[in-house]
């Protein structure tokens, strides 16, 4: 009888435990995540644009930036949304997915406004969000996000318009047809002499990078254009191609590209590199390894700078280029959604382009804004929104 009583007691305990588990929410006992109250696409967001200068205060008596164009681009889906800020400098929206968003807010100042503000007819003055280019928009975001905007005068006259780095299809591991294309965005003749093209340093093995360096680009591959001042002009709207090897690559790889008419060639004279004597060579300032100028096929970053090679500062096994001398910078990644793995400072390039795999023949080209008098390419200092992927390289021209 005692044995049976013990069993009965055990049974009762077990039943009680089971029933309580069944009827009183096992989830709580087992510590399962609660169901979120916020529902995707039903969350409302508000972004308030605030002027860091006194322009808006002078014009409208308030620091709110009204009439600004705001572009939001979803980092994972690539979906874009466009808004105009209201009289309170705010945009309100709902229906978007939770994601990191690349935000580009621009308030172009009119001549009349500049007359009021400065008493001059200053042109091409705008307010942009220089310091905060990426927003997390999700349930945890504050109800009102403030975005500071700063004054920018003009834009870079010289920009990198295309980077081809992936290598052609159907030619094994052929990768010698890489090039970078420079474009004169301005309405006047410029000169490329001594301009610098540098590959931004990162160590893919250790993950070391200097994205957060407050002043300098770090590089171990620095080349400059030849010339002594006005030897190599670039006309308004002209594309200049700087090829790894300035040859007709279609001979070696049928799906590649003819670069025998490139404008410049990277020739590494201390290595068994190919040299087309008809094409002017870029001048190697520093590149300690490799048999040729080399940029990453899937991941990398380049800057175009107006900086004297004599002023380069040594750092470890690298040289430093000041941010203030950088005319343009472009980063590309195998997975362009991984903005947390960026290597180029956000002030130079807020996002990144890419998503191209090796040997697919694809190229990265800057988007076209206008093609009336001359071509105007997009330059928001944000490769995520400035660039697009094209299926074949277009050296010296726009696709």
């Amino acid at each position, binding site marked *: 009888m005692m*044995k*049976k009583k013990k*069993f009965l007691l055990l*049974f009762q305990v*077990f*039943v009680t435990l*089971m*029933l309580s*588990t*069944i*009827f009183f929410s*096992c*989830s709580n006992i*087992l510590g*399962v*995540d609660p*169901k*979120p*109250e*916020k*529902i*995707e*696409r*039903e*969350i409302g967001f508000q972004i308030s644009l605030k002027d860091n200068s006194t322009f808006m205060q002078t014009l409208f008596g308030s620091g709110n930036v009204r009439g600004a164009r705001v572009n939001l681009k979803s980092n*994972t*889906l690539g979906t874009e949304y466009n808004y105009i800020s209201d009289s309170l400098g705010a945009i309100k929206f709902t*229906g978007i*997915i*939770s*994601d990191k968003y690349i935000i580009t807010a621009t308030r172009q100042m009119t001549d009349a406004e500049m007359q009021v503000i400065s008493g001059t007819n200053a042109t091409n003055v705008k307010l942009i969000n220089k310091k905060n280019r990426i927003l997390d928009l*999700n*349930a*945890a975001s504050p109800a009102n996000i403030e975005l500071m905007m700063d004054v920018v005068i003009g834009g870079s006259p010289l920009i990198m318009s295309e980077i081809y780095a992936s290598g052609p*299809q*159907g*030619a*094994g*591991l052929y990768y010698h047809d890489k090039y970078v294309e420079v474009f004169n965005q301005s309405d006047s003749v410029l000169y490329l002499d001594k301009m610098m093209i540098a590959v931004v340093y990162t160590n893919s093995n250790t993950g070391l990078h200097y994205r957060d360096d407050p002043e300098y680009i770090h590089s171990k591959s620095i080349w400059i254009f030849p010339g002594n001042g006005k030897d190599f002009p670039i006309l308004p709207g002209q594309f200049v191609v700087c090829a790894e090897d300035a040859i007709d690559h279609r001979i070696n790889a049928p799906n590649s590209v003819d670069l025998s008419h490139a404008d410049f060639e990277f020739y590494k004279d201390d290595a068994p590199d190919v040299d087309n004597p008809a094409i002017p060579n870029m001048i190697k300032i520093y590149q300690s390894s490799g048999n040729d100028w080399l940029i990453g096929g899937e991941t990398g970053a380049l800057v175009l700078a107006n900086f004297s090679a004599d002023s380069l500062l040594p750092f470890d096994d690298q040289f430093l280029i000041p941010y203030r001398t950088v005319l343009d910078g472009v980063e590309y990644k*195998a*997975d362009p*959604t991984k903005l947390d793995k960026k290597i180029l400072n956000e002030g130079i390039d807020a996002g990144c382009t890419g*998503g*191209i*795999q*090796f*040997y*697919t023949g694809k190229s990265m080209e800057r988007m076209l804004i206008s093609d009336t008098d001359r071509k105007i390419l997009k330059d928001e200092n944000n490769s995520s929104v400035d660039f697009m992927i094209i299926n074949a390289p277009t050296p010296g021209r726009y696709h």
Partner: protein
Amino acid sequence: MGLPTLILFTCKKFVPAELEAYKFRSINILVLLVFLFVENNLAQNYKEFETGFSTIFNAPYSVNSYSFGNNPAFLNFTFDDEFLSIKNITQNDAGEFKKFVAPANDRSFNFFASGKKAIDSTQRFKGSFGFSKLERKNWDWFFTRDYQTDNPFLIGDSVSGNSRVNGILLNAQYAVTLSDDFSAGVNLDYAVDEGLKTVSPRPTSEHRDIAALIGLGYVVNNNISVGITTKVSDKNEQISYREDEGALTQETIILKFKGYDFPNVQRKKVETRFSYTSEYVSGVTFSFHNLTNISLAAFFNSGFEKTVIKDDALDPKSEGFWKDDYLEAGLKFEMLISEDMNVGIKYNFTQRSGWAKYPPAEVLYYERNSYEHSLIAGYEQKVNDAITAGFEACVLFFSKKERDHYSALNSNIQFNQYSGEVGINFAWSQNISSLFAYGFSAKANHNYTLDYNLLSSDYFSKHRIYDFYYLQTADTRNTFSITSKVNTWNSSEMLFHAAYAIINPRASNPFANTNRKEFDLTVEYRIKVN
């Protein structure tokens, strides 16, 4: 010899001409095998074997808390029931009438060696060791093994092709009688498998599944037993995309679905997905036997399953969380009206409530509520010593509501399904019996809505919308099956079950001129231990 001759004659008359010779030869071999193993024992019914029927042709063995309630404490058999067996189960499911997420052809092969043994008068053991091979042919995009759970976080790539999953399955069950009234039991499952997509980019997968089910039983009196169960399971999944040497120069596009639409399209060659699934279930079981002609078993289970999904091998980041609460209940009743007649009723209810969230943003992505009622009634009549006939009718009611907040689409589906199956069991001799069955079912829709954003991407509007079209399409199913049992020498048994079903959509659009065919084959050989 008369009856087997009749089989030959009948089959010869009905098979298509081009298959006649082959099938005739096959049947000859089968009949020859049958006669080789004949012994003078009475042919039993199809105990613990698939027949296609739920309430008849296996009475009274399936109405207890072990078979209907899955309580291992009631793993109960005598020395006479001990056997060792080898069993092969082959299933083939092919056709264009399918959800988009499903492969065009799904094949599985399972081979088990199992046995059960009464260790002494108080302890019973049952176990099995098996190999499994799953082949999914012409599978578009997806490479998640358990894609049918409604978990919206699926992964795949842009290439269509064949995939296979090979694994081993282990099961052990043990029950002990603790006293005259109490018993306890445990059921352990362990499975591991490896998957491979056979075309570039050749992703691979690894799964490890463990489940433990513990049960207690209490005999209230000679007629009534009650029990409780609790189950804990743990599943790990790893899906890996690696740089495939053969496709070094080929672009790889990985698709990560978080809902029906708007997958993350990533042009990359390397990715790793980890899924960790835990399941907790508790239940109660009940059985009643009046020792003469009435048996009743019932169960109620409540539990939930949760899955955590993380991506990236080097720095795993939370990609999704899926939880599915469920209730299930069942009642099975059987009554032997006379020596020649019995009836059975089975009722099942399942309710599921699942939701998914995106943990980095702590927002709700997806909700699904579904329930299903099914009621089956069967009637079995012994016509004479050689023939038993039976009929089963089933009505099923299904309802499912989905709210895919991520993709901005809502779906409500409700339908009824009516089915009937008739079977005739011939005892060809004292040792051979065969059950021939034909079943028909029809799905009738009476409520269906699908609301989605007209700006949906092509991934949905051209492809995954077929997941909904499939559910909304009314269909009919014709099933033919044969089940045979042969008592062979030394008290061993050979059992055989083959079923062929063809499913035709009734609506002409969008599955016009398509169908789906299913074929199941189970062969088991049992050797009595005592």
